[in-house]
């Protein structure tokens, strides 16, 4: 039990190495090794989450060096949730990846490396260590985005690399300032020392600003979001599914961790301008993200802008900074991962089955691929926040929190975001179900290059090849999105002590 936290980080990284080593002996072994690793990872994360949610935080001093000098891993309810989410989504996407590819061994190794990096961010209790994992996962993501064999993928990866590194550098700079102010890197220690140094001193405020803006880049908060649509749209479908579900989610977790564990609520109270930055980021993201989503013609870009908007909700919850809103943030992080990941995978499945990739291609989709349209419809309405799906519950907690805090502007923007989301969702749903199919219909992939990148050479680049694994993964996402809504209250109760500790 006590050794589980480091195991959780080490397991995927070892899996990544194993993938390459086994691959030397026999090719085509990447997938089984990745699945085995992921199953173990889900089990370990599950056991750890159970412990952390029931009995409070699990702490582990890496290498026996005690905090505040050594690196400490701290797994509380929120970290455990993220670790479990990362592991489960990774496993689900693997089911999808088997046919959809890219299927090389290096791909699976990078895939596991990303899982390791994201898990590391979730469980670490040390800010510098967090930066290291942020970089590991960042580099892994750049490589994954570039794994599509189109020029577009390479360009997207390059753009992401430049912007992402910029964000990470800001984050590192912020850590440096905090270190100068306090002489420590351990999160728990930092929060006490920062308070001692004075929450309003320029050094501390600068540290906060740099770290938060750095994370805004990683979360893709408007106007620092520009990398995201390119990356999600340029990456292969499998990768879009994985990173849209996890990368920004874990970055948002890091934001919550930095704001509440390191700087604490008192810092927000002492610096109204810090609070204002969070509110502004939230409102700008929600509104602009949705408006940009409405104006997209490519489905994956639309979904990417939708993510910008949805993470605006999370940032809003951070700004509200009370128990109800942060419980909502935790629920929405999980819910959004399932819904958005599911939507991206559905997009890939639809492309595999019919070749449709743009909003116009989706005209009359229900007649060509009823199951896919149905799943897309369910996930999309869940994203709008139609009850009882999880998208509704998370949003509801955040709004209730905003009302409790008297943050009426945020409350009305978040409630209004339902209508903004509806605008881009209804546009697609209407096309899918109430338009007649245009053009040649089934089998017309628009252009061969696009379909080939989805289905790679093994299926000959022919649409009509959505595998059973792909369909199962997509269906599971839809079911989970609805079922989680019912489970959200129980989870909210479980995580309440964690959140209380966070905001006290």
């Amino acid at each position, binding site marked *: 039990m006590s050794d589980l936290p480091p195991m959780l980080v080490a397991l995927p990284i070892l899996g990544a190495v194993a993938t390459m080593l086994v691959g030397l002996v026999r090719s085509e072994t990447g997938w089984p090794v990745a699945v085995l690793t992921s199953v173990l990872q889900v089990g370990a994360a599950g056991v750890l989450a159970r412990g952390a949610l029931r009995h409070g935080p699990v702490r582990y001093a890496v290498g026996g060096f005690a905090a505040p000098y050594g690196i400490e891993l701290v797994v509380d309810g929120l970290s455990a949730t993220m670790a479990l989410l990362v592991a489960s989504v990774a496993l689900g996407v693997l089911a999808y990846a088997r046919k959809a590819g890219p299927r090389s061994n290096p791909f699976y190794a990078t895939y596991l490396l990303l899982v390791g990096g994201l898990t590391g961010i979730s469980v670490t209790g040390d800010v510098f260590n967090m930066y290291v994992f942020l970089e590991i996962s960042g580099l892994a993501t750049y490589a994954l985005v570039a794994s599509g064999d189109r020029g577009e993928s390479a360009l997207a990866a390059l753009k992401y690399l430049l912007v992402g590194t910029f964000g990470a550098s800001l984050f590192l700079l912020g850590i440096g300032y905090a270190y100068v102010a306090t002489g420590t890197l351990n999160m728990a220690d930092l929060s006490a020392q920062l308070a001692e140094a004075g929450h309003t001193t320029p050094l501390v405020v600068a540290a906060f600003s740099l770290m938060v803006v750095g994370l805004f880049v990683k979360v893709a908060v408007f106007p620092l979001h520009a990398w995201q649509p390119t990356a999600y749209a340029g990456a292969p479908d499998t990768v879009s599914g994985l990173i849209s579900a996890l990368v920004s989610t874990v970055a948002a977790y890091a934001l919550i961790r930095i704001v509440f564990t390191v700087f604490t609520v008192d810092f927000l109270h002492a610096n109204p301008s810090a609070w204002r930055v969070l509110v502004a980021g939230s409102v700008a993201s929600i509104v602009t993200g949705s408006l940009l989503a409405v104006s997209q013609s490519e489905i994956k870009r639309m979904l990417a802008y939708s993510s910008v908007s949805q993470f605006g909700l999370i940032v809003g919850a951070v700004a509200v900074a009370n128990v109800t809103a942060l419980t909502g943030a935790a629920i929405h992080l999980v819910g959004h991962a399932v819904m958005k990941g599911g939507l991206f995978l559905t997009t890939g499945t639809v492309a595999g089955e019919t070749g449709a990739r743009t909003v116009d291609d989706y005209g009359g989709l229900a007649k060509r691929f009823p199951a896919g349209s149905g799943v897309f419809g369910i996930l999309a*309405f869940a994203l709008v926040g139609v009850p009882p799906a999880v998208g509704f519950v998370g949003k*509801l907690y955040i709004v*209730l929190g905003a*009302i409790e805090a008297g943050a009426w502007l945020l409350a009305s923007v978040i*409630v209004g975001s339902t209508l903004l989301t*509806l605008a881009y969702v*209804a546009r697609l749903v209407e096309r899918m179900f*109430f*338009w007649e199919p245009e053009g040649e219909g089934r089998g017309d992939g628009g252009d061969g290059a696009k379909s080939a990148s989805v289905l790679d050479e093994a299926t000959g680049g022919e649409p009509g090849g959505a595998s059973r694994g792909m369909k199962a993964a997509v269906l599971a996402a839809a079911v989970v999105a609805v079922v989680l809504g019912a489970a959200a209250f129980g989870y909210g109760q479980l995580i309440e002590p964690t959140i209380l500790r966070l905001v006290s």
Partner: protein
Amino acid sequence: MIHVASVRPLGAVLVSAIAVALILASRGRPDVRESWTLLASVAKFGTVASMVPGVLAGQVYVTDLGPFLPGVEFSLRADPLGLLFGLVASGLWLVTSLYSIGYMRGLDEGSQTRYFAAFAGSLSAAVGVAFASNLVVMFVFYELLAVATYPLVAHDGTGEARAAGRKYLAYTFGGGVAVLTGSLIVLWATGTTAFSPGGISGLAAADPVVARGAFALLAAGFGVKAALMPLHSWLPDAMVAPTPVSALLHAVAVVKAGVFGIARLVLDVFGPDLMTDLGMGLPLAGVAAFTLLAASLIALRQDNLKRRLAYSTVSQLSYIVLGLAVLSPVSLAGALLHIPAHAFMKITMFFCAGAIHVETHTDNISEMGGIGARMPLTMAAFAVAAAGMAGIPLVAGFVSKYFLLIGTLTAGRAVFTVALLVSGVLNIAYFWPVVYAAFFESRGKADHKPVVEGEPGGRFSGSVATTSFEGGHGYRRAQREDWGRRAPTGAESTWLMLGPILAAAAGAIVLGVVPDAAVFLRIVRLIVAGVTGVAI
């Protein structure tokens, strides 16, 4: 009231949700598919009806599914008010299911599986709204109702239908957002949103500004579906949907869900006493009075029969809201009784409009001269329902309007009494031309209709488009020919449509002749006594 734990409220909601899956599963076999619809509607009505004796004896059936949010239980509760709405919706679904089959097959419509599945889903949501035990659970079903009815509105897939669907989604989700915000403010201010007859006690202690804000949000949110002006314009547009949808959903289930929401709000969330203290009754009554007069006036000029009915619905729904907002026990009784009364009458009229459409493809009143000879039973039923709508005795509308008139008078709000009377006259003015055209005019020799044809500036357009008359159960007719004459023995259409028409009209008459024997008035008395303590 005695609370009885029972699965029946949940069962009543779920039975048609299960039917959705079965309908989708048997999409290749229309007869099997339709039998699922019929089976579910019988089971649903049976489940709801089985709770009537218990509720009349003072019991409340509760299905508790555990906590949903902090302070909010996900529980379903069949209390008298919920049962009133549940009974109307599920009972008329049974009738509409038969009618739907006749209508959809008569027109050979496409996407029938989606149609029947969405219909069953809508009814699940509507009964969920009826049995919701608090505002948040009610919101859950309220939103699901919006989503489930969207495919029905946009069913045709034409540009017009899609535009109506978009408008419908935008309006209802906008309303939903207002309801959610209002509910959460109530939750925040009082720690609960559970309905209790006479109002949530904690709300009286809350800041009046907050309470008024919450009321305004909730009333506006429910007002969208209740088609209060200026939030009504989705309803006439939604008439592009197949007629059974207009009949059950846009005269009964969906719009009444809005009215029912306002009833819950007035009776069980704020309560008449707090409403009076906050001074919220009068503004709401003012909006309702304006709506019922303005909508009646607009109805006068609609030549499309379904649109005229839609504006009539807008007007009649505001009768209910007005009665609720006046807050006197008698007006409350009138308002609540108008829920089933209007439902039976209006569904009859929509069924008639649909039957005319299927048999003759005629939609405009100006083209219906002499149609009474072709469809005698249908038009007779229409005439009966129209008479009731105007408040003529022996039909359902008389009883509820009588209560409304007395209620507004005794509450000292004579201005609303006058509004109701004026609207009653307007009712006759816009329904009589239909009956007159059907029975006293003949094809192609219609009188001038200055009110409909006249341009607002006073010029006459005079041109009336002709339509073709094909389709409808094998009847084919040449243009400009006389309608022909059919004996009132059912030869005018299929019994699948005629039966529901006559059943609904008969229901309207039963409610009007022996209101005490019909169960609705007894339920209404129970509700009013529970909320105000006054026996009607």
